[in-house]
């Protein structure tokens, strides 16, 4: 066990965990931030996507020891009132079905638009291709990313 100071959603928090613990489980088990989801544990589904210094990363493969000193943003910290343009677009298109993958989808989309505010359809598909939606809401996801990009 070791102590780590993490900057999560703008707040510094201390956790005492094994250094190999993936950030996903630190967020979920130790910091009560359960919006970031466990889906596969091997970086294949994207449900655990967070931002590390603004870049979308899979928190199930990121040891807590590698996250210290970085700015970590989870779905809970993406916006103050759930009104990030991507979240607003998700509301507008009423995207979710079961909803389990959507936090990961939104974090991937928000990181994409941060880096590329006007992505083409192909660029949206490429960026979103790592996030599985088992319910099949891909068309609404793409439409929502497009809408968000127009609002940025």
């Amino acid at each position, binding site marked *: *066990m070791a102590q780590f100071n993490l900057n999560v959603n703008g707040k510094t928090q201390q956790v005492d*965990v*094994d250094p*190999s*613990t*993936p950030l996903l*489980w630190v967020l*979920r*088990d*130790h910091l*009560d*931030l*359960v*919006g*970031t*989801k*466990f*889906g*596969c*544990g*091997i970086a*294949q*589904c994207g*449900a655990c996507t967070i931002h590390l210094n603004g870049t979308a990363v899979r928190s199930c493969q990121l040891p807590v020891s590698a996250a210290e000193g970085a700015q970590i943003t*989870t*779905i809970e910290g993406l916006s103050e009132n*759930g009104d990030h343009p991507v*979240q607003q677009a*998700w*509301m*507008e298109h*009423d*995207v*979710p*079905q*079961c*909803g*389990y*993958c*959507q*936090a990961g989808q*939104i974090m991937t989309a928000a990181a994409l638009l941060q880096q590329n505010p006007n992505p083409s359809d192909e660029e*949206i*598909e*490429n960026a*979103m*291709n*790592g*996030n*599985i*939606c*088992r*319910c*099949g*809401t*891909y*068309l*609404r*996801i*793409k439409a929502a990313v497009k809408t968000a990009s127009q609002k940025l």
Partner: protein
Amino acid sequence: MITSNKLNRRSFLKVSALAGGGLILSFNWLAGCKPEEIEEFGLPKEWFRLNGYIKIGENGLITIMSPNPEGGQNVKTSMPLIVAEELDADWKNVVVEQAPLDTDNFTRQFIGGSQAIRIGWIPLRTAGATARQLLINAASQEWNVPAAEITTESGYLIHQASNKRAHYGKMASLAATLPLPENVELKDISEFKLIGKSHKNVETKNIITGKPLFGIDYKKPGMLIAMIIHPPAHGMKLKSFDDSAAKNLPGIKGIFEFKSLQDDYSRTFFDTVSFTDLIAIVGNSTWQVLQAKKAISAEWEPIQSYEEKRDQFGNPTTRIVPAGLESEESQRVKMEAAAKSPRTFRKDGNPEQAFQNAAQVIERTYEAPFLSHNCMEPMNFFAHVQGDKVNCAGPLQKPELTEQALSQRLGIPVENIEIEMTRLGGGYGRRSYAHWLVEAAVISQKMNAPIKLIYTREDDMSGGIYRSRYHANYRAALDENNQLIGFHVIAGGLPENPLYPDRFPAGAVDNYWAEGWEVPSNLTTGSFRAPRSNFMAAVEQSFLDEVAEAAGKDPIDFRLELLKKAKTNPVGERNDYDPERYAGVLELVKSKSNWGQTPAGISRGVSAYFCHNSYAAQVVDLKVENGEVQIDKVFNAIDCGLVVNPDAAKNLCEGAVVDGIGTALFGELKFNQGIPDRMNFDQYRMIRSKEAPKEIETHFVESQEDPTGLGEPAYPPVFAALANALYQATGKRFYNQPFIQELNG
């Protein structure tokens, strides 16, 4: 319309203490209304319960309980919307709350069979209408005017003659004390204000801000995390294990062997489970438990054949579970043998004769592999067993049925079991088989602590409950005028027979024969989105495409011709579809897709099916370039009666199309010596963003029929619409799922 009133006002005996302060309400106002409208109805000081479904605050805010578990079908919006319609409530002042399992107050708290709206239609409306009448009766007393002169509008009671007007909150406390009206009148469809118009999902805001909605998010003070280890192969069981390298790892509280269901327990339909002897690992945190799980070494041994007791909806039966480690090839040998001696399920006319007299016979064989449900939220459940009381919470499709298994296993009466229904991160049938709830409770009992059991993705994908492996052989006889004079299907599976003998084209062919077979197996299978239909639609509708071609007919016209016969001169009496409504969706998809005018460079295929009381027809437009399929567009034509919440209904149909195309192209799981060949998403290919259709258009038949299911009906036919379009693109018929192999092979 008058309906008798069967509701009672008993308070919720089982209202869950677990919910406590952590209850997340689902507000409609947040789904995009103007802030000034929110001001008027803040949270009330007091709630008055009018019946099981409805409580009203003194300030007019209304809570409507959503009875069924929610796993993405949008019932948490649509079911309360139906209540609100008859209550004549203002939807923006309605708060939706998930009801606990409470079979006294609610009917059929299931996810399954696409039946929530169909079966809930009258009870939900009655609940709303009863509460509305109570409010009218209260106002009548308060204002001293006849009840018949009082009208309602958007959450207000109005007495025109005396110019009196009050919101429901003003009358709620009195209404809650009045006797329940004997009979209530339900609205005429023409009076609907909410039903039939699109309303946003009440939970979207909570979902997109990462609120703890799911079972896996559930947390209680002192809660420990548990995981299990099950045998690596089906047909194996635990012999011994060594936990010396695991038990002293940090945070580990207990490692032990346990039995979920007892050997002599008579299992009900949904008590299917592959492995009952398991190793439990319990500890403080998920990562610690995962490390300990990896550090345990176990020895396994083959099972012996055994007799399993089954309670088939009240009828005690037994089945022999065979020993053996099954492989792709050993299964094939057994299936081929079984296919040689099928049982007849239906026979009309003289099919043997028809085939003898035929000018042309078309015969084709189809196969589909095992599938894993792959819900995005891995299996999990919270349980806390304290003496003779059980609290549990998590995602499951059929809580009422699981309660029985839990009660039997723990020796605790059902009345002492509380099940809180969390949102499901997908179900698709998998969460009907809730052995993990029993496992969680047994672990909690042993540890004497609240625990949350979590499966890894690998535990889930390798742990059983699959879609069966299926096989079908079709024959069609055409006469010299290209009329279909004989039809013969022999369908079977390991372990399940997928045949529906009374479905189309039964009733449309004079000489019809349906036979079926099955092969016993120790592989555990179960309901998978549109059970059996998902195979039968895929193959029957592919076959009919080929028969139409052989007859030189347009595939839609060919089907319409058969449906005309089924309507005007049906064969047999058990045909379980309405030929007119079936033809209706084909006509609709024909017109919406401009059938006959295929866009340049596009190949298209059509398919239609009836299951779960709804009709669906689809046209798929695609291109194949360098072995890659690009789906340009899919047209859905659906008849599910009256559409309660159109945009949500469209979402569900779009999802069914994407899911169906993904499964048809990529879905597959095989066994080698009882070991599944896919354990996680690096091996099991799921459809992704790029492979989804570029566009999906969904059209509903305008209908005043009572609403029917929608979670499943749009799923089965798309397999065949895809196969038929792929044929047009490649000149190759696709007989074996997943299609990607034949496409590239």
